[in-house]
């Protein structure tokens, strides 16, 4: 279980901003999101998309707990 957040163009593409999904790692989460929505699965692999777990950017696959918040961040444009 993890709370998953999408921002910017990713959220527009998927049609949602926030969802709770039963997963135990980032890799598992990517598989599940891709199976549900192939276009989103591809976009999440796109250049410059970063992943944050509990508001800290993570570089590699990471284990998730029920309390984890996972955010997919497309390239930041500034304000």
């Amino acid at each position, binding site marked *: 279980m993890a709370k998953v*957040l999408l*921002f*910017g*163009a990713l*959220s*527009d593409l998927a049609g949602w901003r926030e969802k709770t999904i039963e997963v135990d790692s980032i890799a598992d989460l990517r598989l599940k999101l891709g199976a549900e929505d192939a276009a989103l699965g591809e976009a999440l692999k796109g250049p410059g998309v970063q992943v*944050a777990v509990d*508001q800290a950017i993570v570089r590699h696959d990471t284990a998730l707990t029920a309390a984890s918040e996972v*955010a997919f*961040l*497309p*390239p*930041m*444009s*500034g*304000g």
Partner: protein
Amino acid sequence: MISLTDQAFDPGTLLSNFCRGRTETGAVASFVGLARAEGGAAAVLELDAYPGFTEAQIAQHVATAQSRFELQDVRIVHRIGAIGPGEPIVFVATAASHRRAAFEACDFLMDYLKSRAPFWKKETGPDGARWIEPRPQDLTDLARWETR
């Protein structure tokens, strides 16, 4: 102090509050970024942010500014959500003893906020909506700080 808000704000009120009661501040530099109408081409600007994360990332950059310039205080307010033409998007104020530090820190913070801060920007105009990438000029502005 760093705030995100989905409500229109008055930059003058922020500046008055920031200047009040300062007897040892010689210099307050400030910047207001406004949404341009671009002759009707950019009808509505929409800014997405990641509340909590976005402020924390900006705070890290403020700490860098504080270690780099002799600053007394910083105030940042950033709009999120839908922003109409002519409305303020961002307010940055810096306080220092002398004006060079205040100006440079304000400029430094703006370069970061406009190009690398965790915001996602969408413009909706006559040709539909598009997500904005940093302008090449923003990256050039930012590169100025790396050679100093």
